[in-house]
């Protein structure tokens, strides 16, 4: 019983990180119709930067915050390259973000090398439902839930959020009422950077992150985001929950971690199901 509770809890915590990375994909997709391949690189940057800022002598908390801010700026740069040129087709932008993720990998190896990093996080464990779980994992889940709630408030309750949504659903009309759709696109990439960086900062203390982690991260996050049709942050969270808990149950009972593989199969299954009942919105 306590085994099951442990798997469920760690699955929940994992879901938090997938949801953070996945909602980064959702924000960019909603606003620009671009699928950002570099989202996984943001996570890796977050992990390495928080370690570096800690080593530079920033106190705990501040070093993580600094890392998130810098990754937000990296997100802005990726966005500027990917959608900065007017009239860039979303498919071309996707390929540009692929190129940027390769450039990011080169930069990460040049600055930090190829070894994985796992900076110190919040130590200690918590007893919950007869299971023991690291405090860091619970914090990850809590931050994810709060962030997603903040995001959905941003999108529905603020002017900037409405402008983001308008830029997404009808770019021409949005421009007519004076919304700068390119600025909104760049803002969405910055938010994606912040979300990815936040995920990296939170995940790295419990799961070492290396330069090759970007692909598993972007694929797991994409699987979660596809669950919500690439549009809904909360459905992405549900997708992340399914993914995280299934992965931990399989890892616990079947020996051997197949987290990414489960994500891949789930992604394919949802895509195929979607193709059978595709709506006008999804059809090309």
């Amino acid at each position: 019983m306590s085994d099951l509770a442990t798997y469920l809890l760690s699955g929940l915590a994992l879901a938090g990180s997938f949801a953070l990375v996945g909602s980064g994909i959702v924000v960019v997709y909603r606003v620009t119709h671009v699928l950002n391949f570099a989202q996984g690189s943001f996570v890796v940057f977050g992990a390495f930067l928080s370690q570096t800022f800690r080593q530079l002598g920033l106190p705990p908390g501040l070093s993580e915050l600094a890392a998130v801010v810098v990754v937000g700026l990296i997100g802005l740069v990726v966005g500027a390259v990917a959608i900065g040129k007017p009239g860039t087709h979303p498919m071309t932008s996707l390929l540009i973000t692929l190129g940027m993720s390769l450039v990011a990998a080169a930069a990460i190896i040049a600055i930090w090398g190829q070894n994985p990093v796992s900076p110190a996080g919040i130590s200690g464990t918590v007893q919950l439902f007869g299971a023991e779980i690291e405090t860091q994992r619970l914090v990850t889940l809590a931050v994810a839930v709060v962030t997603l709630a903040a995001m959905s408030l941003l999108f529905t309750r603020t002017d900037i959020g409405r402008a983001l949504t308008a830029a997404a659903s009808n770019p021409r009309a949005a421009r007519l009422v004076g919304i700068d759709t390119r600025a909104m696109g760049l803002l969405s990439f910055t938010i994606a950077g912040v979300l990815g960086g936040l995920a990296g900062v939170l995940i790295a203390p419990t799961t070492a992150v290396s330069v090759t982690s970007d692909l598993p991260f972007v694929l797991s996050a994409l699987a979660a985001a596809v669950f919500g049709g690439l549009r809904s942050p909360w459905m992405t969270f549900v997708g992340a929950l399914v993914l995280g808990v299934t992965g931990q149950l399989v890892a616990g009972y079947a020996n051997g971690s197949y987290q990414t593989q489960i994500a891949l199969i789930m992604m394919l299954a949802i895509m195929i199901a979607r193709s059978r009942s595709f709506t006008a919105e999804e059809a090309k």
Partner: protein
Amino acid sequence: MTRIVIAVAAVAATVAPLLLTDQTFFVQTALTALIVTGLSLFMGYAGQASLGQGAFVAVGGLTVAVGTVTLGIPPLLALIVAPVLGALVAALVGWPLLRLRGHYLAFGSLAVLLIIQTVMATAPLFGAGVGIFGIPPLSVAGLVVTDQRVYSYVALAALAAALVVCHNLVRSRFGRGIRALAGSESAAASSGVPILRSKLTVFAVAGGFAGFAGALGAFFTPYVSQDTYPPFASFGYVVMAVVGGLGSVWGGVVGTLALSLWLQVLSALSATPGMPASAGPILQYAGYGIVLVVFLLFVPRGIVPTLAGLRLQRRVVPARAGG
């Protein structure tokens, strides 16, 4: 002019294997060009990308490895079946995913590649992580290939055949259909072009090319494992297709050659004294990434169509001045 260039290139490619002592670079480049030619055709006409084209290369390689080593079927039969299976798997993946927006297929094929990699790393039939060794050399009716040059010429012949297929495909009734489709799907559909079937056909052809490349590669190496088909190689195919020019018959060959030379330059650079050990991977990642971004932004049509456009301009401008 174009004909002269093609003739010179064809002669050079035919003579090269006789002069080279090691055929590895030639075989790998010709097979990569074969894969990229198919991918370029698909990306150019279907308007979609495939980030996991290596999946179909792996299908071809596994067909040969499992077929000859485990099942004991004749090598030639395995070489013939491999592209068929590659095309079949591509059609199976494309059938649901080509209905959706482009990025679904891009990630769908990547997912298939990674799943194949996992299967190769765990399932005993497919190598269980150590790979499949001892693939026999290619043989035809008792004649066993001992000279590595034969692989170079088979690869070259396959590439030539693929170029002829592409050339005819683009200029046929079917080709006019897919060209219309690349311009506007709804317009093509209203003129009676079967959208899904056309895209699926091009994707299956690309999968068949990849399957053959994987099969011949497996005979040449002669060993396959999950590390034979890394995702990074598949990203490389996309870069080469974009650099050469999507949807142009020669784009795949030109892109592959350009990228191969560029990577040779970079690897020579990273091997110069004084360079750190990590310079190799850094330059490789950056080399691919920067080239991809620069081409997409500044030479979006790729080398071949851009050069063709320049020649056309030169031909048109004097005509205008004269008239």
